[in-house]
């Protein structure tokens, strides 16, 4: 049942899927090209991955939501069919997981090919998951309750943060930045990944439950 609803989201944007893949490939490629002459920065991969995840989410989820809003009543038809409202929401979250998985896959393939790009370790992957989940976890309930026009504000805020974020982070943590990056790189120990994992999964589940509740009450 849910599988079909997941399929639905992909069907709705099938024309743009190549574009999304393109974006996820382009980000690391661009980074590699831009950095080919600089010294290797430890842990830069994490930021590249973060960008990939955020951009992927932005484009994919926004595209699906736009299509859904164009044919709003189609959602009603699906809910008039024996699809539980819960499944409708869960399917969306599964789509997010799939797109996250695609980012991991694309990154790993490129890292396998290009020696200067390190593979992601668990902590870095989980950071990506956490940030992406925070973004998606805020966007989705807002989109369900208030529509995509208001939800777009969330993405706009994310883009702003993305552009200013690294700069701000560097400004704030100026001297400590290399420390943090190497800390991330060296931590294959258990504590940090566990905390990140719990936080990520926790936010994922909370957002999903909230979205399910909002959608259950929604008038179609």
């Amino acid at each position: 049942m849910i599988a079909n609803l997941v399929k639905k989201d992909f069907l709705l944007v099938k024309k743009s899927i190549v574009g999304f893949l393109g974006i996820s490939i382009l980000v690391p490629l661009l980074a590699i090209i831009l950095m080919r002459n600089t010294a290797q920065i430890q842990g830069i991969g994490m930021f590249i991955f973060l960008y990939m995840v955020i951009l992927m989410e932005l484009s994919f989820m926004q595209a699906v939501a736009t299509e859904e809003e164009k044919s709003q009543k189609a959602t009603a038809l699906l809910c008039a069919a024996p699809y539980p409202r819960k499944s409708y929401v869960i399917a969306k979250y599964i789509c997010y997981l799939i797109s996250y998985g695609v980012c991991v896959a694309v990154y790993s393939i490129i890292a396998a090919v290009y020696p200067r790009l390190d593979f992601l370790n668990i902590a870095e992957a989980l950071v990506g998951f956490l940030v992406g989940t925070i973004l998606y976890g805020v966007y989705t309930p807002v989109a369900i309750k208030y529509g995509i026009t208001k939800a777009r504000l969330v993405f706009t805020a994310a883009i702003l943060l993305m552009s200013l974020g690294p700069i701000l982070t560097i400004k704030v943590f100026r001297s400590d930045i290399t420390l943090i990056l190497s800390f991330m790189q060296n931590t294959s120990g258990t504590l940090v990944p566990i905390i990140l994992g719990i936080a990520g999964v926790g936010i994922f589940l909370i957002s999903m439950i909230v979205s399910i509740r909002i959608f259950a009450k929604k008038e179609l």
Partner: protein
Amino acid sequence: MNNILEVNGLVKRYPAFSLDNISFSLPEGCVTGFIGANGAGKTTTIRSILNLAHKDAGTIKIFGLDTVKHEQEIKDRIGIVMDGSYFYNELSMQDMKSIVAPAYSKWSDADYRSYMEKFELDPKQKISTLSKGMRMKFALVLALSHQAELLIMDEPTSGLDPLVRSQFLGIVMDYMENGGKGVFFSTHITSDLDKIADMLVLIDGGKIILQQSKDDLLDTFRIVKGNVALLNDQNRQLIRGLKVSSFGFTGITDHVAKMKKELPDVLLEKATIEDIMLAYIGGGNDDR
């Protein structure tokens, strides 16, 4: 006789409009027309039955099961036809079907293909390129391809030309003759009902005005026409939708026997469903 759909005390409040204690029951084996003017509450009632809108009060049962407690089970057994805007316009009919079909346990691809052929629809065609009539037919295909026991339809014939409308009515008749247990459809086109409705439910201003067998209505009501001078305060009460002009009065009555006694000199004629409906919702008696 079992009731296939029972609505009891349905209340739904919106800022500008409310459904006020709606109650009606549909016996099995009937085609029921749900009539009312635009804005009378037909679509809101249907959306409440389907749990698309959440009711503020009341119970609704389909096949004897509560629509909230047995929601999925019921929806598996009913076919829905709403207007064509309930599809993803950018998808082809095939894609749309691939999303909707798996939800139904008794879906039959063979039925789907034969209906698509019968209605001359090309599955690969994009929904946005379909005419209104074709969209309605596609909605019917989806509703008829999973052995639905009850069809619920919201204004399925509005905006359709007479030929397509007549095809639609034929399809409904076929459905009932081939195992369908009931059809419930809303409309404001009363001529459709003349042909296929067994039972009529009239709604106006969020209230149920009447629920009766169509033949009973046609047997009981008569148009009355006569000389204005014949009217008095007493016999006036027997007439609905009274209209007075310099040439005489006209109206509708369901008290034919009394009418013949009190006003033996009036003309009594058969009324159509539209006459009856207008008399009830036309806004009371009009005496000048």
